[in-house]
């Protein structure tokens, strides 16, 4: 909620958009981010609603760029990117008769084996709200990327995500 709507940077981005003035009162009426988004979508015209979604996406993208790539997107750019995303989408949809071809970006995010004479231990935590459980998984592989050992552990009750993840690490080290 803070990130998308209340943060000063995000408010500046929203203020660039004229249609926002007709809906910004919704922000004050609701606490829950889901409610804010869906109430806003109901009020807006089709075209504005599409742009609203794109702006949210673009703000989230700004956040990801900052965290993962250490790139800072200026606020005007964030708004323009939302607009061009929508325009590109519409342009792509309007091309008739063309075959749909999907291209995936050449992302090279792959697990990398440990350096020589070392082992690597991957750790993760999963949460089940319905069963009130936290699951911990870890797997050790060697320098030849061969499986050495895996461990699972499970406990109740549920806890906050960062607490659960920290317990995962503790369990792996212990």
């Amino acid at each position: 909620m803070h990130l998308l709507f209340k943060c000063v940077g995000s408010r500046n981005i929203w203020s660039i958009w004229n249609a926002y003035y007709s809906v910004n009162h919704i922000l004050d009426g609701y606490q829950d981010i889901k409610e804010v988004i869906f109430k806003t979508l109901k009020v807006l015209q089709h075209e504005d609603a599409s742009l609203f979604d794109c702006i949210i996406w673009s703000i989230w993208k700004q956040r990801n760029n900052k965290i993962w790539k250490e790139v800072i997107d200026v606020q005007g750019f964030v708004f323009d990117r939302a607009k061009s995303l929508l325009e590109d989408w519409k342009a792509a949809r309007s091309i008739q008769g063309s075959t749909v071809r999907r291209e995936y970006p050449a992302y090279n995010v792959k697990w990398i084996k440990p350096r020589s004479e070392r082992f690597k231990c991957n750790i993760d935590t999963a949460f089940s709200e319905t069963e009130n459980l936290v699951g911990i998984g870890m797997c050790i592989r060697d320098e030849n990327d061969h499986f050495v050992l895996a461990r699972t552990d499970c406990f109740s009750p549920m806890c906050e995500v960062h607490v659960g993840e920290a317990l995962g690490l503790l369990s792996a080290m212990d």
Partner: protein
Amino acid sequence: MLQLGTVDFEMDAKRVVDSINSSHTDVTEYGNIISNCKTLFSQFYENSCVEFVRRQTNEVAHSLAKAALSLASFQILVTIPNCIEHILFNEMQ
């Protein structure tokens, strides 16, 4: 305790990795777990590191954690469990 050589840890929880690598301490439950990890780390994993990785590279552990939710108790698996067999295979280099 793992009776192995040097082990490096990888996880996709950025907050935890940042906490481990920072000298900041706090008295919350979370802070307490982190300081326990740091103690173990300094005693047994002197030459190791705890690194942040993207979720996409941590799929093996993710699948095991999900599987752990339906396993009644703590388990040590010395043969490759079914749920991660295909991921391990894909990640072979």
